[in-house]
């Protein structure tokens, strides 16, 4: 029987874990039961779970051992050895239990209530086991069944751990089968062995929720029985088992049935409670807790009742020691009371209880008798143990009784539902209390005295054990030695005492908690933030790690005021100037010229040769004007047509110079002159108008300068006061115009003069400048000037070699602005020839010259008289002089300007020189001898170098003279039918051709190569009287342009271009002409 004790110690050491690992079926089972309780305990008081478990177990073990002992005593006298072994270990167990109890005094109380429930279940199982045993013994078949059932029971018990109230039903159901049988037996074997009765009693009370601690004894006995029996079963149904046992079992079965019935009732109650719990459990956890608490409280109160009863039991046991019979009776009476109480709750059990009581008493006696000397020791021991318990209960009695009623009040408050039961119970308890003083006070006092003595002894010996839990194993070793010296007994007292006090404490606490918990509200709705440490940013981290401590970096940007300002504006240029109004001189404004302005002005105003520019512009203007004129002609066919109409048969084309100017109306053209060097330039002399209409020009003659290429208007207009009889250009250039007037004055016009120097006149929207003569011989040099009208004015070229290169001379002179000085010869009717030198003044005197009275102010050209010749005296011999010859015309020999020929009115042409040298032939005579009054109207030198000249006479005869012979080479009389010849001129382009104009306005064209006797063509101009004729053409050129300018009496000037056959030179024409001339000689 060593196993249980060892296991107990194992339990002590290993709190809960070892339980399920306990060896053996029995232990396993018993270990299981506590676990069910343990778990319920955890529900109730989770805080102390572990310790409670260990305690519970130990307690249970002790109880079991006690029960076992009793059981052995009662039922198994044969197996005494085994019992003894058990007995020897019991105290040990008890001692250990006490140790733990003392240490865990506080926790015990709660645990106990659960122990009770556990015990109750254990009883059930043990009863069932017994049934099985019996069945086995009766019939082997049942054995197997029993085993099975047992295992089922185990399972059910394990399930009981969870469902304490529901599982029992199952058990009951299982056992229902057997219950019927057992009922029958139970009735038969109502009176049975004592242990059965005892166990029955215990069971019975436990069915009443074990309200009496007294029942522990019996419970323990039953448990020990169970243990014994199981051991027996393990030993294959020990043969020593007595019939009593069987009987007892049968009785137990019967009781069991009853118990089950009660259990059912209790279960109903429990279920009701459970239901309530469940209902409540739906509510929040607090309420559930309070429920559990209330449940606990309920259990507690039950415990308290148990305690009270236990104390009574204890006292009764104490009595039993002295007076067993009395004790039994007392027990009986108490049981009767209990019975009554039970009857109230469950009337139907009354009979059985009476029977039980009866059997109990009987069993007591039997036990006492049956257990012989061997059992006496045990009895005493047991009794002592019981006494200790009783004493404990007595010791705690005062407290207990004091609190007793309070507890009840609490009880009533908390559980109104159970008032009936409780009231009954209370009444019983009160009765018990009352009984105790009456019957046992004296006895109790004695016992208390003894106990106190014993306790004193023990307290001295076992102080350490109480103190330290951890020394339990050591104490267990000590315990066996102390066992025989009643140590266990004393321990029992103390344990009980402590248990009592702890229970009371626990009850107090529970009450408190039950009161408080409803008031307390637990929640975790609020959460607290303990620390919130934000992460450090990288920069701070860097600074913390690498920067200087306790410094902070800051950045400042300086030089903010370093700004640049800029303004861009144009500089104001200033310049000082002055001006005056009205301007008194050429300088009307001026001022200091700064250097910069100088350079700019210098750059802007290049040096200009103003003279050259003026020349250029002048010529250019002419060219451009001519071009424009041509263009205009070309675009005016009508005008051209008109001119075409007027063209003659001898001419290819003709045009008119536009003499239809207002100032030219009604003026007869007296003279035409074509420049020798500029063949296109034509001078036309317009005489005084027949009726004066224009104021300014009323008494003045007009000379127009034409450019035949520009026929629309005269180039320049010259005016003079007297009538102009003859005019000429300067020999080398067209810059000067000379004119002789009828009153013997010689006039000079400088065409280069500024037009501003001359009067202007606006006639028909055109600004005309009428140039006055630059120099006039009128009124000056009276001694030398002509006194008669000037008949001819001839330029005398001073160039000696003009004869040789005649053609080139014009060009050369034209280019030279300051041409070499030349002379002008003027001859009047008296035969006086004056030679004038043309002088250009280098200095212009705007104020006028005091010495040169004939010079216009600002003029630059003046004439200086060089020589005078009386041609009549020097030129003609005496015989001719007698006839009073009159010089009419004079021509200077182009090849030798010193030589000149003079035409007379007596048909003779004299030859003279300027320096009075004798030249031969002195006179050129016509072929007819004798002097006749024939005036020589026209003389023209052969232009191609040979010393030939043509003479046109008023009798219409034409003579061709050779300078070396007195008589003419050829003479053509009557070519014009006796009409006087007005003009005669060699063709400029053909040596053999000359043109003749007679007074009847007929033009005769002579081509000596073709016909040297008669003119080849004759053209009479109709409708108009042609006054004079001039040939236009350039001798050096062979372009075939040969124009005849015909001045009509009406004032018109027609220009006829003769046909090509007379204009274009023929090859070797000069030689042929020479041959003809030679032949004629």
């Amino acid at each position, binding site marked *: 029987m060593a196993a249980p004790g060892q296991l107990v110690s194992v339990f002590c050491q290993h709190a809960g874990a070892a339980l399920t690992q306990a060896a053996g079926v029995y232990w396993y089972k018993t270990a299981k039961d506590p676990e069910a309780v343990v778990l319920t305990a955890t529900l109730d008081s989770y805080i102390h779970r572990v310790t409670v478990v260990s305690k519970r177990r130990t307690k249970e073990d002790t109880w079991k051992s006690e029960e076992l002992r009793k059981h052995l005593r009662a039922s198994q006298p044969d197996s005494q050895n085994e019992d003894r072994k058990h007995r020897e270990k019991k105290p040990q167990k008890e001692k250990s239990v006490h140790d733990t109890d003392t240490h865990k005094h506080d926790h015990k109380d709660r645990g106990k209530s659960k122990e009770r429930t556990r015990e109750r279940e254990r009883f059930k199982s043990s009863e069932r086991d017994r049934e099985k045993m019996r069945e086995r013994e009766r019939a082997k078949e049942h054995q197997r069944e029993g085993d099975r059932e047992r295992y089922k029971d185990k399972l059910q018990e394990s399930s009981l751990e969870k469902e304490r109230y529901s599982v029992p039903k199952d058990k009951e159901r299982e056992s229902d089968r057997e219950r019927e049988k057992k009922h029958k037996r139970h009735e038969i074997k109502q009176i049975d062995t004592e242990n059965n009765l005892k166990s029955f009693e215990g069971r019975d009370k436990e069915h009443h929720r074990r309200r009496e601690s007294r029942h522990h004894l019996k419970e323990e006995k039953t448990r020990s029985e169970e243990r014994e029996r199981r051991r027996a079963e393990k030993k294959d149904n020990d043969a020593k088992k007595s019939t009593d046992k069987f009987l007892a079992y049968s009785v137990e079965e019967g009781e069991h049935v009853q118990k089950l019935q009660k259990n059912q009732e209790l279960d109903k109650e429990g279920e009701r409670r459970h239901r309530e719990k469940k209902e409540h459990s739906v509510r929040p956890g607090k309420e559930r807790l309070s429920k559990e608490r209330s449940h606990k409280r309920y259990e507690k109160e039950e415990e308290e009742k148990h305690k009270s009863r236990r104390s009574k039991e204890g006292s009764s046991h104490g009595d039993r020691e002295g007076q067993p019979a009395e004790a039994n009776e007392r027990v009986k009476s108490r049981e009767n009371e209990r019975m009554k109480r039970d009857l109230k709750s469950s009337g139907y059990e009354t009979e059985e209880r009476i029977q039980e009581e009866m059997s109990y008493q009987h069993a007591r006696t039997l036990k006492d008798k049956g257990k012989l000397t061997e059992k006496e020791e045990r009895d005493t021991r047991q009794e002592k143990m019981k006494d200790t318990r009783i004493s404990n209960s007595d010791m705690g009695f005062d407290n207990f009784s004091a609190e007793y009623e309070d507890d009840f009040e609490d009880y009533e408050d908390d559980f109104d539902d159970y008032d009936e039961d409780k009231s009954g119970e209370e009444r019983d308890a009160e009765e018990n209390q009352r009984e105790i003083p009456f019957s046992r006070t004296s006895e109790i006092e004695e016992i208390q005295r003894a106990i106190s003595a014993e306790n004193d002894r023990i307290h001295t010996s076992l102080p350490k054990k109480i103190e330290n839990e951890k020394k339990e194993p050591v104490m267990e070793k000590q315990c066996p030695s102390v066992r025989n010296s009643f140590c266990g007994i004393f321990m029992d007292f103390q344990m009980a005492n402590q248990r009592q006090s702890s229970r009371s404490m626990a009850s107090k606490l529970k009450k408190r908690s039950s009161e408080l918990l409803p008031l307390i509200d*637990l929640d975790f709705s609020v959460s607290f933030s303990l620390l919130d440490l934000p992460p450090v940013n990288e920069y701070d981290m860097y600074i*913390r790690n690498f920067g200087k401590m306790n410094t902070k970096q800051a950045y400042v940007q300086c030089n903010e005021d370093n700004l640049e300002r800029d303004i861009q504006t144009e500089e104001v240029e200033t310049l000082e100037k002055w001006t005056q109004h009205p301007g008194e001189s050429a300088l009307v404004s001026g001022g200091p010229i700064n250097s910069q302005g100088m350079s700019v002005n210098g750059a802007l105003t290049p040096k200009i040769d103003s003279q050259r520019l003026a020349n250029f512009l002048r010529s250019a203007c002419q060219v451009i004007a001519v071009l424009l004129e041509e263009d205009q002609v070309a675009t005016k066919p009508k005008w051209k047509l008109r001119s075409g109409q007027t063209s003659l048969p001898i001419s290819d084309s003709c045009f008119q110079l536009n003499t239809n100017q207002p100032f030219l109306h009604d003026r007869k053209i007296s003279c035409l002159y074509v420049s020798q060097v500029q063949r296109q330039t034509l001078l036309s002399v317009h005489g005084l108008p027949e009726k004066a209409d224009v104021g300014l020009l009323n008494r003045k003659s007009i000379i127009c300068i034409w450019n035949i290429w520009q026929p629309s208007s005269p180039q320049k207009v010259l005016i003079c006061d007297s009538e102009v009889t003859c005019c000429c250009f300067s020999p080398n250039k067209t810059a000067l115009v000379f004119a002789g007037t009828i009153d013997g004055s010689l006039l000079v016009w400088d065409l280069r003069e500024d037009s501003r120097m001359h009067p202007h006149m606006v006639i028909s929207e055109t600004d005309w400048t009428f140039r006055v003569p630059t120099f006039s011989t009128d009124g000056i040099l009276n001694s030398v000037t002509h006194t008669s009208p000037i008949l001819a004015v001839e330029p005398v070229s001073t160039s000696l070699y003009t004869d040789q290169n005649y053609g080139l001379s014009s060009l050369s002179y034209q280019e030279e602005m300051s041409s070499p000085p030349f002379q002008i010869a003027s001859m009047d009717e008296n035969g006086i020839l004056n030679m004038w030198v043309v002088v250009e003044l280098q200095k212009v005197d705007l104020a006028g010259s005091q010495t040169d009275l004939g010079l216009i102010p600002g003029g630059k050209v003046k004439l200086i008289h060089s020589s005078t010749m009386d041609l009549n005296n020097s030129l003609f011999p005496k015989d001719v002089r007698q006839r009073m010859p009159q010089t009419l015309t004079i021509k200077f020999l182009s090849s030798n300007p010193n030589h000149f020929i003079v035409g007379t009115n007596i048909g003779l042409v004299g030859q003279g020189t300027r320096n009075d040298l004798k030249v031969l032939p002195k006179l050129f005579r016509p072929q007819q001898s004798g002097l006749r009054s024939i005036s020589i109207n026209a003389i023209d030198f052969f232009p191609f170098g040979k010393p030939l000249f043509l003479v046109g006479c008023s009798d219409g005869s034409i003579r061709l003279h050779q300078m070396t012979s007195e008589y003419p080479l050829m003479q053509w009389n009557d070519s014009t039918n006796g009409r006087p010849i007005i003009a005669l001129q060699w063709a400029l382009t053909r040596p053999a051709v000359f043109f003749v104009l007679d007074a009847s306005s007929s033009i005769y064209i002579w081509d000596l190569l073709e016909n040297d006797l008669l003119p080849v063509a004759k053209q009479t101009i109709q409708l108009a009287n042609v006054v004079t004729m001039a040939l236009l053409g350039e001798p050096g050129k062979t372009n075939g342009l040969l124009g005849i300018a015909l001045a009509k009496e009406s004032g018109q000037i027609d220009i006829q271009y003769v046909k090509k056959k007379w204009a274009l030179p023929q090859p070797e024409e000069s030689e042929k002409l020479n041959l003809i001339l030679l032949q004629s000689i």
Partner: protein
Amino acid sequence: RFKSSTVKECIHAILKEKLANVQYNPEEMPQLTKALSETIKDRLKEEGFDRYKMVVQVVIGEQRGEGVNMAARCFWDADTDSYAHDVFMNDSLFCVVAAFGCFYY
């Protein structure tokens, strides 16, 4: 009554005294936390909160720039139970002490 302010003062004083010049050392910290918690607990007991069960929690961590967030949540009776906490920091470590007082009915 559990007075948070006084408790906090106590904790603060202790922390100041014990951790003034302590550098974080992972090996020493466990003992330090235990010692601290014991010290604080004892000190609080001296304060005489007889009816209170004290729970003292000490957490020491190294300061490395990381963010830390600590929070607590209690299942208790807010009428009676309370807590106090204090934080101590120096360059190398932070220490959070939370003391919870549960009323003992």
